[in-house]
């Protein structure tokens, strides 16, 4: 029997019972679609987090005050002292490391901003001119914080786009004066819209020189120091240098935490990848169920078509040929099922992408391949038994329909 004939014959017998065939294809395609959509979601979440992290800057080492791990008990702890603050001088000292290209100290607080009668609550970020590059921000108009002495508390500010729109409408606020808390600041620049990243919306912030922020909030400590390494390879060195310099400045006390962006990223990456695989695996169970369903229906098909099998044998079809015919039917079923499932899954992914544009959903290629192979595999595996049973029928009893 020729291969095209085998396929045609199998296809014809599938068409012969459209309801049964349709249901089996549906079961198979739901399994495949579930794998595609769920892994697509997992992968989307992973990419989302990675994008968010990458938009924060590249090659970053982040320093924050306090210790988040228990590495013994320092004398400060016994005295009930709070950890030493990070100071502006601490930040400046980090530039001594040759692995570090730029640093940006960060102070954060919230304050009332007002222009004439309009006012609202804003997050105020105190930093230096290097924040623009370190944090990958861009300006829509005007200029960023002026470089120079970090201790100078100039009364200038840079507005996020949304703040500018709320205070000045469609006009640019550059050159105007606004009131932040009890001080007046001149607007010198406006940020381009960046949207939200890691729950922090740069469209709704006001950036002022770090010294001004300290005066505004009456503090002297830093919330974070963003340290940019010279290259990807230097990140580890930058981290070691940062720790060494800060521990030395803090009298040997390890009261700061230094993390690299990479490490955080890698952790998220691992967690989310594992999640994607787990979800994909759960979805694959539905594929296995679909496979068992195919076996069941094929077994029913064999007993329904006993007479036909008997006839084929009488007409000279050897057992192997009958096995091949049933086998081909199952392969066709699972093949069509997985293609339909792929289409359904991709459509679902597209739909979710439309629904949540910020989530970069896309099923990873390995999950798509795995889904197709699992569906074909289960289809083939579970058709072996029915096909064998068909092939082993005794022609005399089969023809009699027994």
């Amino acid at each position, binding site marked *: 029997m*020729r291969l095209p004939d085998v396929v045609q014959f199998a296809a*014809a017998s599938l*068409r012969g019972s459209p309801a049964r065939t349709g249901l089996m294809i549906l079961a198979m395609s739901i399994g495949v679609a579930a794998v595609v959509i769920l892994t697509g979601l997992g992968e989307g979440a992973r990419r989302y987090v990675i994008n968010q992290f990458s938009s924060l800057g590249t090659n970053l080492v982040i320093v924050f005050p306090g210790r988040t791990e228990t590495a013994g008990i320092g004398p400060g702890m016994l005295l009930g002292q709070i950890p030493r603050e990070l100071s502006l001088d601490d930040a400046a000292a980090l530039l001594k490391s040759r692995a570090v290209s730029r640093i940006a100290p960060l102070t954060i607080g919230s304050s009332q901003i007002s222009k004439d009668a309009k006012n609202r609550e804003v997050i105020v970020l105190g930093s230096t001119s290097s924040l623009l590059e370190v944090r990958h921000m861009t300006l829509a108009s005007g200029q960023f914080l002026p470089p120079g002495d970090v201790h100078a508390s100039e009364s200038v500010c840079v507005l996020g786009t949304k703040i500018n729109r709320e205070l000045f409408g469609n006009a640019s606020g550059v050159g105007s004066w606004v009131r932040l808390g009890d001080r007046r600041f001149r607007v010198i620049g406006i940020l381009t819209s960046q949207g939200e990243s890691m729950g922090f919306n740069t469209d709704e912030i006001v950036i002022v020189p770090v010294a001004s922020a300290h005066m505004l909030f009456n503090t002297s400590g830093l919330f974070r120091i963003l340290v940019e390494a010279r290259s990807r390879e230097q990140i580890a060195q930058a981290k070691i240098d940062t720790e060494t310099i800060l521990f030395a400045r803090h009298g040997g006390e390890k009261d700061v935490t230094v993390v690299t962006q990479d490490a955080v990223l890698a952790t998220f990456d691992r967690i989310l990848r594992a999640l994607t695989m787990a979800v994909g695996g759960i979805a694959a169970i539905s594929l296995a169920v679909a496979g068992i369903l195919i076996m069941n229906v094929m077994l029913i098909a064999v007993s329904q078509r006993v007479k036909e099998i008997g006839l*084929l044998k*009488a*007409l*000279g*079809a050897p*057992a192997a*040929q009958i096995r091949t015919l049933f086998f081909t039917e199952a392969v066709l079923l699972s093949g069509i099922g997985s293609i339909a499932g792929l289409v359904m899954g991709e459509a679902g992914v597209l739909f979710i992408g439309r629904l949540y544009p910020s989530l970069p959903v896309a099923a990873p290629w390995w999950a798509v391949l795995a889904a197709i192979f699992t569906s074909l595999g289960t289809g083939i595996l579970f058709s072996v038994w029915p096909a064998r049973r068909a092939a082993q029928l005794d022609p005399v009893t089969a023809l009699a329909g027994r």
Partner: protein
Amino acid sequence: MIQFEKVTRSFQVGDQQVAALRNIDLSIAAGDYVSIMGPSGSGKSTLLNLLGLLDRPTSGIYRLDGGNVTDLNDEQQARVRSEKIGFVFQSFHLVPRLTAAMNIELPLILAGIPVQERRGRVEELLKNYGLIDRADHRPDQLSGGQRQRVAIARATSMRPSVLLADEPTGNLDQTTGREVINLLEQLTEQNVTLILVTHDPALGERASRQLHMVDGQIVSPSRP
């Protein structure tokens, strides 16, 4: 040329061996027209199944066209069935989802005959059996006589040397039954060996040779 040498076929029923055929010696020449008659349970069908290689004898030797086919394995026997034996059944046994033309083509497909040749042969058979305008009809759209004509066309599509017909007129009325028998008898003129199992003595007497079976044995071979 069909030769049976001491062929016995027995079945296990419970803990008893029941012989359906006992020590049958039989020789049928090529192109012969043989009818097998006898009461039900006499072994007619068993004999036919053995002749058609659908069943294997418990003992004895079956030679077809000079070759011993008893010892062939399943695959080889399937091949002999495909090339040398045609079946016509009482209940037609057409595949319901296939058209008349495709039913006729089925043995050719199974044998792996190239498409071009298949078309020609099916065309010819449809013409010979007056089924041209029924080619695209499914079995349930055909009358009983037409169905049996499709079945005969199918049985002859591989140009077998032996045609086995099991009560071919059993599900047909008198007139169509006569037509079908005429078609089958015409085949014997082309040197096809026709073996007909029937209950109907009138039908059986038309054959040039009649075998009567009782209790698994041929009791009155009309010609030794």
